[in-house]
């Protein structure tokens, strides 16, 4: 089907965008990559009366290291993240996840901010944001605010964004020495939304000045296991993470984490996959990602 009618505006500055959003409120929609919005408009599930095209707003795209944080502009395309040397170096989790998002033609248009704003429960970027402890930066005529990823994703396609607000950028903590990152997902076909997916962050070995003294210490800490496709939002598996804390990454601790998962996740069924199948898949996926990480690490 074809989109309904709308008015189109192409602001040339952030100020103009914020004015337009303040003026039109929830009648207006921002269009970034259009890779989620245009399908929903074509299906007549959305009918904004004004489209605010942010593709020409300077300063909204690009990746930059700012102290201990990597700043990702909302308009940064998935494809840019996939091949950015800064991302590979300072946010390897994002570099690993990017190729799983849709297909090249969609990655060339779709944006980081658009994906975070859409908050699809099976989407990669929201889960990575939660796992890394990202901060989402919003701007409106009333000022700016920063929301931690933990508080940002509220439900299926539901976030803390108000109608007059724009995501300007997202910050993720820059990767530090001794941190491990893993990512994998199960999907029917390459590029499909995940049935279940998992993003992992953990520290291996001691931190800071203790590192030299405790060089042979190979225990895990700061473990974060961000599952997606299993609930209305991405979720951290707290019990499974606790089963890994303070232990080396080996067959035994991986098994313990897999057993603990049942307390963390009660996956929802979807149109294609039953809750039982998803429960099984989360265990398999956790095993795969952790085993791959233990291999990476000892290599």
């Amino acid at each position, binding site marked *: *089907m*074809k*989109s*309904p*009618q*709308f*008015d*189109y505006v*192409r602001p040339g500055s952030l100020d103009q965008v914020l004015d337009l959003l303040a003026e039109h409120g929830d009648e207006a929609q921002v*269009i970034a990559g*259009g*890779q989620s919005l*245009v*399908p929903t408009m*074509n*299906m007549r599930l959305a009918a904004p*009366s004004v*489209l605010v*095209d942010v*593709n020409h707003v300077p300063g909204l795209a690009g990746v930059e290291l700012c102290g201990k944080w990597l700043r990702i502009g909302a308009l940064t395309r998935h*494809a840019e993240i996939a091949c950015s040397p800064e991302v590979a170096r300072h946010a390897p989790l994002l570099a690993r996840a990017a190729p799983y998002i*849709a*297909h*090249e*033609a*969609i990655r*060339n*248009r779709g944006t980081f901010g658009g994906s975070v704003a859409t908050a699809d429960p099976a989407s990669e970027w929201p889960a990575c944001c939660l796992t890394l402890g990202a901060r989402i930066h919003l701007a409106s005529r009333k000022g700016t605010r920063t929301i931690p990823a933990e508080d940002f994703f509220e439900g299926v396609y539901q976030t803390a964004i108000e109608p007059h607000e724009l995501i300007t950028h997202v910050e993720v903590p820059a990767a530090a020495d001794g941190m491990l990152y893993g990512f994998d997902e199960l999907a029917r*076909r*390459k*590029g499909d939304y995940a049935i279940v997916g998992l993003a992992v962050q953990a520290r291996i070995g001691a931190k800071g000045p203790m590192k030299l003294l405790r060089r042979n210490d190979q225990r895990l800490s700061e473990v974060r296991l961000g599952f997606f496709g299993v609930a209305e939002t991405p979720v951290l598996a707290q019990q499974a993470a606790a089963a890994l804390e303070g232990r080396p990454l080996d067959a035994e601790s991986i098994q313990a984490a897999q057993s603990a998962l049942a307390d963390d996740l009660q996956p929802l069924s979807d149109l294609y996959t039953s809750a039982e199948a998803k429960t099984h898949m989360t265990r398999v996926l956790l095993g795969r990602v952790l085993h791959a990480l233990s291999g990476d690490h000892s290599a």
Partner: protein
Amino acid sequence: MSDINYELNLTVNGERGSFRVSPRLSLADFLREELHLTGTHVGCEQGACGACTVRYNGDQVRACLMYAVQAEGAEVETIEGITESGELAALQEAFHRNNALQCGFCTPGMLIAAADLLKHNPSPDRDQIRAGISGNYCRCTGYHSIVDAVAETCSGGTKEATQ
């Protein structure tokens, strides 16, 4: 809301033009209906099938997921333009030899996706070829012959390169 038409200046297959378009007109429909470039096909209009794939400022995109009005100042290349330049000749011949098309509905998008894959990775293995065309549906061939054609094109390419 008024159905006013917006000015649009863009370059398609190397030719600049000025048009007036309704904002709701997709880039795919603009190319087909205003410019009669009907090699850009329209299947799902949801980004899923890949039949509408074109190049936008050098990168492959879905022409059904952009509004024409957004393409102000852009360079768009369609299957017609890319064919004329000769860039696709080897791929097209390999598709022909391998029966990599039946009805041909998917073929323009498939060729653009395959060319883009080969630009980034001149010697992909069969899995990489399958991943590269994973965003393009073919309802006729079962994909096998398409993978054969792409594989043949790049082995031809490497032979030339090593000569």
